[in-house]
C-alpha cells in the first residue's frame, strides 16, 4: 500500500453540486453525531469528482464542522476512497487468500504485461486504473474483481479479457 497520508491538491476549491448538496442536507440530520456524516460525504465527493482531493477533504471538514485531519484519518483508513485520480474504469483485484489461491495473480500479471499498469497505476489514456485490495467478501466465488463498484466473480484470465473488451 502506498503512503496514503499524502494528498493531492487541485488548486481549485471544491464544493458539492446542487444535487449532492441537497443529498448532504437530507442525510446529515439523520446522524446524532455530525461526524458520522464524514464517510457518506467522502463517498459523495468521490462520486462527483472521481477521486478525493485535499480541497474536497477540507470542504467536507468545514461542512461537517470537524478537523480536516479527522476526515483524512477516515479517508486514509478505507482503501475504497481514491486519493488520486483514477481511470474511467477502476479495477480492484482482490489479493487475499482465497483469491490468491484461485489465481488472481494471472489477472494481475496480465494487467502489468499487456495493459501496462501495475497496482496503483493508470493507463496513459486514462481508461483503466488498477489496484490490489484486501478481501472483498466474496471468497466463495474467488477470484473476485471489482470494476467501478461492480463485482465480477469466479474470474479467470479468459473471462477477464472478455470483460475488458466490453468496456469502451
Amino acid at each position: 500500500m502506498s503512503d496514503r497520508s499524502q494528498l493531492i491538491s487541485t488548486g481549485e476549491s471544491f464544493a458539492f453540486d446542487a444535487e449532492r448538496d441537497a443529498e448532504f442536507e437530507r442525510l446529515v440530520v439523520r446522524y446524532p453525531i455530525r461526524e458520522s456524516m464524514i464517510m457518506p460525504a467522502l463517498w459523495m465527493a468521490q462520486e462527483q469528482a472521481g477521486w478525493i482531493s485535499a480541497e474536497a477533504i477540507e470542504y467536507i471538514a468545514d461542512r461537517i464542522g470537524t478537523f480536516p485531519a479527522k476526515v483524512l484519518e477516515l479517508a486514509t483508513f478505507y482503501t475504497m476512497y481514491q486519493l488520486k485520480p483514477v481511470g474511467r474504469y477502476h479495477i480492484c483485484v482482490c489479493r487475499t487468500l482465497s483469491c490468491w489461491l484461485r489465481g488472481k495473480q494471472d489477472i494481475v500479471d496480465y494487467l502489468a504485461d499487456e495493459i501496462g499498469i501495475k497496482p496503483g497505476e493508470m493507463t496513459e489514456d486514462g481508461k483503466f486504473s488498477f489496484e490490489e485490495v484486501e478481501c472483498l467478501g466474496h471468497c466463495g466465488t474467488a477470484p473476485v474483481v471489482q470494476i467501478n463498484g461492480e463485482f465480477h466473480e469466479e474470474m479467470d484470465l479468459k473471462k477477464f479479457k472478455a470483460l475488458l473488451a466490453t468496456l469502451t
Partner: protein
Amino acid sequence: MKKIELVIDGQSVSVAPGTTVLEAARMVGIYIPTLCHDPHLEPYGACRLCIVRIDGMRGLPTSCTTPVQQNMSVVTEDEEITRVRRGIVELALADHPSDCLTCVKSDECELRRVASYLGVEKKSLEHLHKRTHVADLDTSNPAFDFDRNKCVLCGICVRVCKEMVGLGAIDLCGRGYETRVSTFAGKQWSDTICQSCGECVEHCPTGALTPKRAVIPQREVKTLCPFCGVGCSIYAGVRGNRIVRVRGDRDNPVSMGGLCVKGRFGYDFVNHPDRLTTPLIRKEGVPRSAGLAQNVSVEDIFSPADWDEALSVAAAGLEEILDAEGADALAVLSSAKCTNEDNYLIQKFARAALHTNNVDHCARLCHASTVAAAIESFGDGAMSNSVSDIAEAEAIFIIGSNTTECHPIIARRLKQNIRRNGARLIVADPRRTELAGIAEKHLSHRPGTDVALLNAMMNWIVECGLHDHRFIDERCEGFTPFLENLKEYDPDRAALITGVRADDIREAAELFARAASAVIIYGMGITQHTTGVDNVKSVANLLMLTGNMGRKGTGFSPLRGQNNVQGACDMGALPTVYPGYQRIDDPEVRARFTTAWGIGLNDRNGLALTDMITAADRGTLHGMYIIGENPLMSEPHLEHTRTAITKLRFLAVQDIFPTETALLADVILPATCFAETTGTFTNTERRIQMVRRALNPPGSARPDWHIISDLSCRLGYPMSYPDSSAIMDEIARLTPIYGGISHRRLQRPDGLQWPCWDSRHPGTPRLHEHRFTRGRGKFYAVSYKPPAEIPSTDFPLMLTTGRVLEHFHTGSMSRRSRVLESLKPQGHLDMCGEDARIIGVQADEFILVSSPRGKITVKVRIDNNVPRGTVFMAFHWKESPANVLTNSAVDPVARIPEYKVSSVLVTKAAHVPPQAEKTIH
C-alpha cells in the same frame, strides 16, 4: 453521591461512580502499566496493556475503559496477564529503534518503564521481525521534532490536539502496519495549522515527539508564565542559570496544565545576550535623539556605570526638575510586566517621594475603558467571573477578542466547553477569526460600530420580551432611560451602520438571551476606541438585561492582556487612585495614606499616559521615569511620541532590554525579569499567584522594587524592605481588597482571588453574587458615535491593529526567543484577495501603507478572513511598526487611544527596504 465499593487485588476500594477500574487502582497505589492512557484525555483503549481480570467478565478487559461497578472483584496481575502484556511490549520494542542511551526522552520514557516493569527479555525480541523501513524525521517545526520510528501509536498526541487544544492538527492515518501519526495531507509539521503549543510533545510517552535542544533539568521551580494575562502556572526546569524546559502545572485551576507556544517555548529571552547587565549612562555630548537613528548600538550611546553612579544621575535628574518645575513636571510609568510588589512601590515612589500622581502604565492603552466603565456600571473594574465560568457557560458571546491568539488557554477552555457540553458560541468581529470560524453566528461588523450592534441586540431582546425582568427590578437601576434610548436601535437601522444583516443581529440576540447562563468575553476590540467606555457600558447593559451576572456560567469577562496588568491597576499605578481603587480625591482615603506613608500627599489627579506624551510635547512635562514600558513602540502616532519624548529634559529607563525607549534615556537601570525575582502577579480573573525566583540575575541587574527603594532613599524618602513579602504585607494593610493576601497564604496551588478581605477570607471567584459592588447595577443609555477617523478618498481603507499568537506586544521579549522569532520573523499587513486585486498587489509583495500620520513599508499577506475595505496589522515588529499609522485620538473619559480604527492608503512599494541582518539565537 453514593460511592461504589469494589475489591482490587484483595483491597477494598470505595470510589465515585464513573471512575474507571484503572483510576480506582491507581488511587490505592496499585500500578497497572499503560501506554495510551492519559488522565487528561477520554479513555481510549488502544494499547491493551492495562488489561485486568474481572470476576464475571469474559476475557481480559482493559481497565482504562471499564467503569467500576458495585462489588466488582478485580485482579490486576497474574501469569496470563503478564504474558499478554509482555507480548504487546515485545512487539512494540521489536519495531522500536534501540538507541535509548542517546534518546532525549531517556528516563522519562513510558515504553522503557513498562518494558522494564514487565521484564521483557532480549532473547524473545530476537525472534521477532525487525523494522524494515526507517522513516525520516520531521524537524520542520522550530520547537520540536517528530521521529515516527519511535512512535507507539498510542494516539495521545492526536487526542491531546483534539480534546485539549481543540485544533486537530494531526491524526492517525492509514491502516495496519502503515498506520502513522500524520499532519493534514502529510505536510511538514511547520506547514500546517499546528500552533506549536507543544502540548502533544509534553504528553507523548516516548521519544517520538521531543523538544529541540532538549535537556533534562536539574531542578524545577513552580512559578508563572510571564506573557499574557491568563496567568498559567508553570514548572520552570532549570539547569545552571538557564531555563531549559517548561511544563504546565496540572494543579493550576486556570490552565489545568496547558500552555501555549509562548508559555512553553518562549523563555530563552531570559538568557539573551541583549539583556542589560549593568547600569548605563548616556555619553557626554551624545544628544537624546541619537537613540532614534536606525541600527545604533547601545555602546555608541552609553557607557557602563556602577550602581552608585547611575542612581546618583537618576536622583539628580529628577531632583533638578522637582526643584525647578515642581512635582507635576515629572511622571512615572509603571509596568504591567512587573510584580504587584514592584508596582505598589513604584506608585508609592511617585506619590510619596516625587509628590506627584502622574503615574500610569500600559493599562491606559488596553483596558482603561473597562476599568472606568465597569466601576460605573457594577462598582468593580475587573472581570466579574472566573475562567471556570467560561468553561461552564451555556452560551458564550465574544466581541472584539481574537481569543485563540491573544488568550490561547482561555480559548481552549472555551472550545472544550463547546466540544463536551455543546456550549453555543457567537462571535462579533470584523475579521473571521479562528473562533468566528467555529461559531454558530459570526457577526462581522464594521470596526467601531460596537455600540450600534449591542444596542440593536438589546432592542430585539426587549422586543421579544426575553429580558430578565426580575433581575432588572431587584438588582439594577436606570432602566427606564436606557430603554427609551434603545428604541432608536432597531436591527434594521443598526444593519445600515454595522454592515451586519438585521436577521443575523436578531438571531444572535435570541440565541444569547435564551441561554440559561451566558458570558460575554471581550478584548481590545471593545476597549481601544474613542468610544471605549461606551462600548464597555453597552456590554454591561447586555449582561444585566439578561440577568447574566453573579451566577455560575455567567459574567463579564474582559480579558486582560499582560501577565500583571490587573495587578498593576489594583496596586494603584494609575493617576487617580491609590491601591485598591481608592480615590485620591477622597480626603479620608488620602488621610489614611498620608498617615501610613508618613508624608503629605498631592491631591491633584495625575496625568494619564496618553496625556503625559502630549504634555511632554507641549513642554509642561519635563522628566519621565519609565519602567518596563516601551511607548516608542506601543503608543499610537509614533512620530508624535518620538518627538515628545525627545523633548524631555530628563529620562530614566528601568528595563531588562535596551528597548526603543531606553535608547533615548539619560540613564538605564538594569532590572531582573520574572525568572529572577519573587513576588506576585494577578491574572485576568483577579487571581493572585506567586512568582518565584528561579535564576540568578544577569550581571548586576536588580529587582525593580530594590532599585526603586534605593532611589527613593537618595531622594530623601527612605524605603527599606527586607524582601518582597514585606511589601505585600504593607499592601495588605492599605488595600482592603488585598487585605488577606500574604506570600505565606499564596503557597497554595490555586492562589487567591480578590477581594480577599482578611487572613481567613477564602477569596472571591465571582463578584456581584447577591448584590453589585456599587449596590445596584446601573444601566446607561449609550448612543452610537462613529470612530474619530473614517475612510476618505485619500485614505480609503480602515486599518485595525492587534496581536499574533507567537509574539507579545512590542516584541522586546518574544522577538528575542529563538522559537517565537523563527515562527514569525516578519510583520505583514493582512488584506482580502479582492482588495489586493483592486490595488494590484500580490501576496508577499512589499507595499507602502500610509495614514495621515506616517508611512511604513511591509509585506502584504492575502487573508480572506479580513473583510473588504479593512486591513489588519499586528504591532510587534520594529521594522514595520504599525503604530506609526494609528490614531492618537482618545476616549474622553478613559484616555485610551483608538488603535482599532484609522484610515490608510495602501500602494505598491517603490523600493524594498533593506532588511536588517537577522540573527536568531
